[in-house]
């Protein structure tokens, strides 16, 4: 089968998953429970995506843990996203040099 057909089907499916709820859901949700649920979802999603995956993200648990600790400390101090993200990378990289 043509790769272009695969790509079109893949892209179409992915787009509709995003566009249907985002485009056509116009009402404000009145259910208080549902509003609370949707408020908490982002934090829940990001947390589940990060832990424990972050510990495997560099291919070496030691460098990943050093990077994670760096990120946690800087994030706790309310540093900007880019500073936290790049400092985690830099410390993971530097740790890797000494292993």
């Amino acid at each position, binding site marked *: 089968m043509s790769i272009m057909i695969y790509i079109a089907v893949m892209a179409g499916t992915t787009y509709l998953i995003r566009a249907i709820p985002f485009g056509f859901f116009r009402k404000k949700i009145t259910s208080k429970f549902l509003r*609370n649920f949707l408020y908490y979802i982002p934090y*829940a999603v990001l947390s589940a995506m990060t832990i*424990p995956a972050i510990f495997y*993200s560099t291919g070496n648990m030691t460098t*990943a843990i050093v990077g994670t600790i*760096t990120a946690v400390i800087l994030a706790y101090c309310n540093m900007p996203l*880019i500073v936290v*993200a790049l400092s985690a990378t830099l410390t993971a*990289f530097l740790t890797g040099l000494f292993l």
Partner: protein
Amino acid sequence: MRKNDFLKGMSHGIPIALGYLSVSFGFGITAVKAGLSVWEASLISLTNLTSAGQAAGVDVIASNGTLFEMILVQLTINIRYALMALSLSQRLHTSFTLPKRLLASYGITDEIFGVCAGQESPLKPLYMYGMIFIATLGWVMGTFLGAYAGELLPASVTSALGIVLYGMFLAIIIPPARKERSILFVVAVSAILSIFCKYIFPSLSGGFTVIICAVISAILAATFFPREDEA
């Protein structure tokens, strides 16, 4: 003022773009190894803008799977975007008309969602466009470079870059978790469930794991920590 929104979106999108650059670099390498051309790999990144879904999609293509399988795989892995889209739809500025919504929905990814959800004021179209523009640029460029240049970067650099996006996620969830106990609760429960899934049910796909953990912990938080609506 309007131009400012676009620039603000772009600046908030820079860490996302940098993270994407490194992650999609890896995707480019994988796609070419699976038999795709540099252009096909880049086209997939431009039209899909999602990491796990693309990796799984390339697997389907490489194994000559059916289109039905392709649709099912994308639905399973990417259905979390529907939840995110629904969540964001509640916080849009009134200037977000239907065509603008349909345009911006293209760019709802985990990271863009995360940053947008962290904004206090209602989301404006130009703000989202700016963020999506720079993030897509990083995603497609990284794919192209990875597919084209393969393994030019030393392994020590590419492996360290694997942590970029996760570092950014921590920067998004930790400050509010520090301020609000309810968010600390949801973050902790979700993380514990995720660890549990990873080691007790290792065959569960990453996409499914995230959906299960997030839904359970958000239901618990909504039950035990109901918030008074400010809006």
